[in-house]
């Protein structure tokens, strides 16, 4: 049996989160309360107010959080469909609910939770996870606590990792969701092509999107995500590409590094 104070909070938390709470509260509110450890005085007081008043809190919490998620991924939510998105969100609240104290991070928690469910659901458009991830990027990158680091002032060296701006993300999509129109009513399907975007916050605070080729993405995966020294990263990227590290690939990598330095994303070699 939970402590008295804890029981009351547990009951309200369940009323807000549990998928079946509205039905159960309307069917037998007293049983719902007792199941969470509430006893006579508290049960009587809550029964006097009625279960609908408890459910006002459920509506307030769900409306606020669902609207925040929808605001961040509005095109994904629209393509999912109003009732389906609402059901997804109800299930999120039931199974996990937010754990972040920052409201702006709730949409990312929802997308992380819903990704395997959308992926496994044949009724969900196959590009929707990519679109939701893409829609989150703008606020995610703009607000990333990392980013804006100073250049190391060290020239590139083959035996050292490179330092990139902390805000940059390498996004790899199976669908070219970045080409979809912004209109919420649009229902077109994006091209089904592997798409690589390097996304970062520039020195003015704007979020920039750089579409890059497969070879560049392989290189950056090794250098940004795995933080490998340049030579090792290039070798691994070539292996994964099923090709040798020839002059053409080296030249492309050099051009990529120069372009990223121009954009202020590549900040030099990491100090030893």
């Amino acid at each position, binding site marked *: 049996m939970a*402590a*008295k*104070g*804890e029981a*009351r*909070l*547990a009951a*309200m*938390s369940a009323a*807000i*989160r549990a998928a079946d709470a509205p039905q159960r509260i309307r069917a037998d509110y007293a049983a719902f309360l007792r199941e969470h450890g*509430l006893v006579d*005085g*508290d049960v*009587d*007081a*809550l029964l006097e*107010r009625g279960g609908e*008043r*408890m459910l*006002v*809190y459920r509506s*307030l*919490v769900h409306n*606020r*959080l669902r609207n925040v998620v929808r605001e961040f991924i509005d095109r994904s939510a629209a393509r999912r469909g109003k009732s389906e998105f609402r059901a997804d969100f109800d299930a999120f609240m039931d199974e*996990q*609910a*937010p*754990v*972040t*104290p*920052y*409201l*702006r991070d*709730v949409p990312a928690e929802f997308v992380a939770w819903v990704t395997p469910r959308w992926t496994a659901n044949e009724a969900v458009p196959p590009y929707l996870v990519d679109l939701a991830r893409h829609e989150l990027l703008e606020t995610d990158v*703009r*607000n*990333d*606590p*990392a*980013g*804006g680091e100073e250049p190391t002032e060290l020239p590139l060296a083959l035996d050292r990792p490179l330092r990139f701006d902390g*805000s940059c993300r390498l996004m790899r999509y199976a669908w070219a969701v970045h080409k979809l129109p912004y209109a919420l009513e649009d229902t077109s399907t994006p091209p089904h092509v592997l798409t690589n975007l390097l996304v970062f*916050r520039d020195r003015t*605070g704007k979020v920039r999107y750089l579409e890059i080729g497969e070879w560049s993405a392989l290189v950056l995966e090794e250098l940004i995500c795995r933080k490998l020294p340049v030579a090792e990263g290039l070798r691994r990227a070539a292996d994964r590409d099923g090709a040798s590290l020839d002059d053409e690939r080296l030249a492309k990598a050099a051009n990529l590094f120069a372009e990223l330095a121009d954009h202020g994303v590549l900040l030099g070699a990491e100090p030893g």
Partner: protein
Amino acid sequence: MTTPTGIGLGLRAAFIERVERGEADGKVAFLELSPENYMHRGGPAPRRLGAISERFDIITHGLMMSLGGVDPFDDEYFRELRSFLDRHRSPWHSDHLCWCGFDGALLHDLLPIPFDTGTAIRVADRVRAAQDRLGRPMAVENISWYLELGRGQRDEPEFVAEVLERADCLLMLDVNNVFVNSRNHGFDPYTWLAKVPLERVVQLHVAGHELWDDTLIIDTHGADVRNEVYDMLAWVIERVGPKPVVLERDSNIPPFAQLLDEVAAVDRVYQDALGRWHANQLVAKHGS
């Protein structure tokens, strides 16, 4: 740290650019902000806030401390919060007499607490712990509540007074919340105000509210301040003297110039009441 008085505005993303451009200069006495909207955040937002805090006194008002909760405090949250408060030199920090999370889940709303001694002791313990962690005084805000969570042993003002006494902390008095509760639960708001220790009031909030249905008003901060709330503000200021008063607006935010007009309207009520407070002080000092 400075302690501003007069009418301030709750800073919101919807008009922060206008504040940055100087449109509020000379029109609001200070700004109140919620640290959670800026903590753990990079990019333009902290730079913008840094520039604004050079021009305005800042008072902080949190949303997620869950003083009425039972989950342990989040150490990382408190570390970030203290760093933020130090950076922006907030003279005190306020949060709500509510809970907002349970069993690790954070529900991002102001959820009601029972008005009993066990809860008062728990809340007061947490307020004292928060003061220690933050290295500055804490103020607690009375919330709008739509349901008391169980059978309370006392009424709300008695409960608030008990928490303030046990925690030896300050009161962030939201007069709109008192008004909303008085309408929803059928009590006299002035009786409520007379029962709380006004000497602990460090700051006030005013705001507007909206109807949920025929029987319930919700504290949405989505409408203009009502005359009844102005009257309550004046009643308090007449008794407590100069304090910082924040106009809160979170939804249906009007054009910024119109919002500043409302700040000016609050200020007129405040200045009139302050005049009466000064007169009362003179009478008390020198006799009528």
